[in-house]
């Protein structure tokens, strides 16, 4: 139990067991220490009497204070133990000195407590019988999954067998899952948690030749100018901001339709907030570029030496680079001849005053003075609106100011999740039914499923039916598919197997859901497999600066829950595949290292060194504690050598080794905005969605935390006071948000909606509202479109471009209890 309010926490005694781990949540991946010791024991308040080695009360910023939510009681080897999960006070990387955010700071509230708020963890395999989930044995569950998989593939082909799985999770789990789906079954019906298809999240940037995770956090600190777009770093990558970006003192140019904390911080400290109209990033970035080009402010040394000529581009092997790549001369010709990129026109389109566009150009390029160290950082607001065009445009901007490969100079994603996505095999793109202009594309697995082509889908570690565009339409299709064939009427293996096979053969859909908690997708599952997770197994993962660390096991998994890799391995063996007999998680870690070779995550050298030293890979990694190692790694003279930043040799990801500019089609963007944007004649507004500081993703942990549920007892809709007044809305009113132009997986328009509580705030401008993207029971994705043909080059949803009209349903009852405090108070405000 959290014990909030008790006014005391037990201190770890000097003999507490100490493990090293990393925060489970955002891509910053702060280092943590975990202390466990039997309930009944307690350390004392003097330094000599506790494991932290400090006197209590501790001092300001000591990093050694244990708040009430940093403690919990868990089972270790079946015995009750205290656990304290403390941001590592000795950290000298990432969260230096033990700082943390509210999300990671309460990690101790995440763990399984049979008598606490996390008591509803999934603990047994379940089978839906007559509509109800009932417990079955692991042996029966994996027999069913293996038999149904084999049957589906034999009768309907491997394209009928699909896996929907996290792309970002621990190396060991992603590798094992992808080994089964891509390596053994070789299905193209495989897609990540956040998209309908495999493929690059930032293809425009990649086509520039730039690695999406090229920066080190030290670059943020060394930069003189930070250009940050599409994600508030304080709010969602907190420690990257508080430890690296803010103390580094760079002038911040911040792009966001909302006036968030970082927007105010930037403006209060000599920087700029470019408050952009949603969906117009390409015009803004190219207008800034045009000002730079017209004033001769670009980094001529970098551009002339390190960007490709037309001849070099024509010799590239990657078709998109040949087709959309541009030499500098072509780039200049294109942006200066596109009317929408001219200053005044771009100002109209983007809503950003012309003088701010000019000032931004001057800041990031240094104007007529010396080129400053500029770093360009972005995230989902950029690439989940107009994926290809925006990522190309921001890459172009980075190249123009030489933001690459040198200290304080990078162009990089900030990341959405941590990075453990090492797959075991390549994607079988030749089998995909999707293509663009004669070029194969990764399969749109959601469209494929809605069309009735997927007969078996294994959903792993994601709230699939809350996370996709037009998620209500997807659910409706699932319900229709699930009505085909007989219901399961018995837990007798033969009966259940026969009935599930009959569903598959009748054109139905069998769903396996592998999770730690039930979520919005579980009601549609036929088989539920309970997973063990963070703290319950040894795992490894990278962060957004490619820092590889171990996440140690420190407690028992709940009930019969098993780590994902074990489940994949058992099913793989039962299906008769070789290579699924790993004895432990370390064996997968070592095997995956071979596949990582040559890439951004390359840690083969670590495993090679471990073997040379007679150690296990995990054990060598453990010796690096919360510091870990920045990949790619190499061995020189028997010693491990890290990579602080990518492109440090000014070689880029292309055949020529040079970077290049990329064409971003503004007309395509404008057409899409016409389709997706609000229609003022219908009283529609933009309905944007995204993360907020206090919670994480589908809130699997955070609906089970007292503090976060008190902060957000409901989903909310930020609405400008002017828009609120016009509709008679006050804080705490319950709002119905509805859109009749939501495009489903097949491109058909339908009505979608969700309900949320009004949060009246000038954080959003008039005409723009904002909501949390995946609050349980309030699916914002009911109003985001899922028609991937809108972005034919790369099958990604326009999650950030929702619209809707608002109806006030009256008081929610939360006005008196929920906090409606401002969420963007930054220091140094002049008003």
């Amino acid at each position, binding site marked *: *139990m*959290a014990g*909030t*309010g*008790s*006014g*005391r*926490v037990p201190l770890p005694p000097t003999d507490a067991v100490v493990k090293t781990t990393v925060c489970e949540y955002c891509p910053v991946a702060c280092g943590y220490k975990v202390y466990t010791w039997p309930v009944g024991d*307690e350390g*004392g*308040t003097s330094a000599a009497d506790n494991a932290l080695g400090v006197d*209590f*009360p*501790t001092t*300001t*910023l*000591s*990093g050694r*204070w244990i*708040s*009430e*939510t940093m403690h919990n009681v868990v089972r270790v080897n079946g015995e009750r133990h205290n656990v304290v999960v403390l941001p590592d006070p000795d950290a000298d990387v990432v969260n230096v000195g033990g*700082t*943390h*955010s*509210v999300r990671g*700071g*309460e990690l101790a509230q995440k763990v399984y407590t049979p008598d*606490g*708020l996390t008591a509803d963890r999934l603990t047994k395999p379940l089978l839906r019988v007559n509509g109800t989930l009932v417990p079955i044995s692991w042996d029966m569950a994996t027999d069913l999954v293996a038999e149904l998989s084999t049957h589906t593939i034999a009768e309907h082909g491997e394209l009928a067998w699909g896996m929907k799985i996290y792309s970002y999770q621990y190396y060991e789990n992603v590798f094992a899952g992808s080994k089964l789906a891509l390596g053994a079954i070789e299905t193209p019906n495989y897609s990540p948690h956040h998209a309908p298809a495999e493929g690059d999240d930032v293809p425009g940037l990649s086509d520039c030749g730039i690695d999406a995770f090229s920066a080190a956090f030290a670059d943020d600190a060394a930069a003189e100018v930070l250009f940050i777009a599409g994600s508030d770093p304080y709010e969602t990558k*907190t420690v990257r901001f*508080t430890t690296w970006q803010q103390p580094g003192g760079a002038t911040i140019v911040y792009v966001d339709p909302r006036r968030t*904390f970082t927007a105010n*911080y930037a403006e209060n400290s000599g920087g700029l907030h470019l408050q952009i109209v949603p969906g117009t990033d390409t015009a803004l970035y190219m207008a800034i570029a045009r000002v730079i080009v017209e004033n001769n402010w670009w980094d001529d040394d970098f551009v002339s030496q390190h960007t490709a000529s037309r001849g070099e581009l024509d010799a590239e092997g990657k078709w998109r680079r040949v087709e959309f790549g541009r030499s500098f001369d072509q780039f200049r010709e294109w942006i200066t001849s596109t009317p929408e990129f001219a200053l005044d026109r771009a100002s109209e389109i983007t809503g950003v005053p012309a003088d701010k566009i000019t000032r931004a150009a001057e800041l990031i390029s240094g104007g007529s003075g010396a080129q400053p160290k500029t770093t360009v950082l972005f995230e989902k607001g950029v690439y989940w609106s107009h994926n290809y065009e925006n990522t190309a445009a921001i890459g172009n901007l980075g190249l123009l100011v030489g933001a690459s490969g040198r200290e304080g100079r990078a162009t990089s994603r900030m990341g959405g999740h941590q990075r453990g996505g090492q797959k075991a095999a390549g994607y079988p793109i030749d089998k995909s039914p999707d293509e663009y202009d004669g070029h194969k594309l990764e399969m749109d697995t959601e469209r494929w499923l809605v069309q009735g082509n997927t007969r078996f889908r294994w959903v792993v570690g994601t709230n699939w039916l809350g996370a996709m565009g037009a998620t209500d339409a997807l659910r409706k299709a699932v319900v229709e598919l699930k009505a085909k064939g007989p219901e399961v009427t018995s837990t007798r293996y033969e009966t259940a197997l026969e009935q599930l096979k009959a569903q598959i053969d009748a054109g139905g859909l069998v769903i396996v859901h592998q999770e730690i908690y039930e979520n919005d997708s579980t009601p549609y599952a036929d088989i539920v497999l309970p997973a063990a997770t963070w703290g319950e197994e040894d795992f490894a993962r990278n962060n957004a600066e490619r820092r590889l660390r171990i996440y140690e096991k420190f407690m028992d998994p709940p009930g019969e829950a098993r780590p994902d890799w074990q489940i994949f391995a058992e099913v793989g063996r039962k299906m008769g595949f070789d290579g699924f007999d790993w004895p432990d998680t370390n064996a997968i870690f070592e095997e995956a290292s071979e596949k990582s070779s040559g890439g951004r995550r390359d840690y083969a050298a670590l495993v090679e060194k471990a073997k040379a030293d007679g150690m296990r890979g995990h054990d060598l990694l453990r010796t690096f504690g919360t510091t870990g190692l920045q990949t790619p790694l190499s061995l020189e003279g028997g010693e491990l050598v890290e990579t602080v930043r990518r492109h440090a040799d000014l070689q880029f990801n292309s055949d020529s080794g040079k970077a290049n500019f990329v064409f971003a089609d503004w007309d395509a963007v404008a057409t899409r905005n016409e389709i997706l944007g609000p229609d003022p004649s219908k009283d529609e507004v933009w309905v944007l969605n995204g993360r907020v*500081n*206090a919670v994480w993703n589908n809130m699997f942990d955070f*609906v*089970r935390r*007292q*503090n976060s*549920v*008190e*902060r957000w*007892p*409901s*989903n909310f809709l930020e609405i400008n006071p002017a828009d609120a007044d016009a509709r008679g809305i006050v804080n705490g009113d319950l709002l119905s948000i509805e859109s009749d132009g939501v495009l489903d997986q097949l491109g058909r328009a339908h009505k979608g909606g969700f*309900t949320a*509580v009004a949060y009246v705030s000038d954080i959003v401008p008039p005409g723009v509202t904002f909501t949390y993207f995946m609050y*349980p*029971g*309030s699916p914002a994705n009911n109003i985001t479109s899922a028609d991937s043909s809108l972005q034919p080059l790369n099958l990604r949803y326009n999650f950030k471009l929702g619209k809707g009209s608002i109806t006030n349903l009256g008081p*929610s*009852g939360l006005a008196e*209890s*929920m*906090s409606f*405090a*401002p969420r963007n*108070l*930054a220091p140094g405000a002049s008003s």
Partner: protein
Amino acid sequence: MPLSRRDFLLAGTAAGATIGVGVLVPLGFVLADDDDANGATGASLATFPRARVGSVSSLGVGDAQFFDYPYEGTPNVLVKLGERVPGGVGPDNDIVAYSNLCTHMGCPITTYEADSHTLGPCPCHFSSFDLSRDGIVGFGQATQNLARILLEVDGDGIYALGVYRLIYGHADNLAGEDLVVVSEGV
């Protein structure tokens, strides 16, 4: 009447377990006469002192006054919100007090924005707290509400009676060895 720690034990910590859209009243001061299951070790304070920390007549709406409690050098903020709140004292039930040591990493916060009842942003990592909602983290990185000072009004005097929730830096609010306890008020 001085209160011992056990008087502050929270009844029903599972109140926050509601999932989805549901009404959660901030817990405020829920007192329970229960045994302290953890058992105190090495506490130097058996009970919290009763100390005068302000006067009703000199505290205007929107004012923020600072006082030490329960130890010398342990700062707190006293405010009159201008809005009736659970646990608020005084004629308008709107006087509240909290430790102003940030429950992120302990920096003292002295900025108070009266319009939104917000203490903050903290000078260290910019957390801010809603004093009209039991000191909840309105925005920022702290992992618990501000420690709240239990108040009573006697005549014109505002008195602190105890502390609910952990004060930054402490492992036990009553185990302030080597600290000087604020002297008991009249």
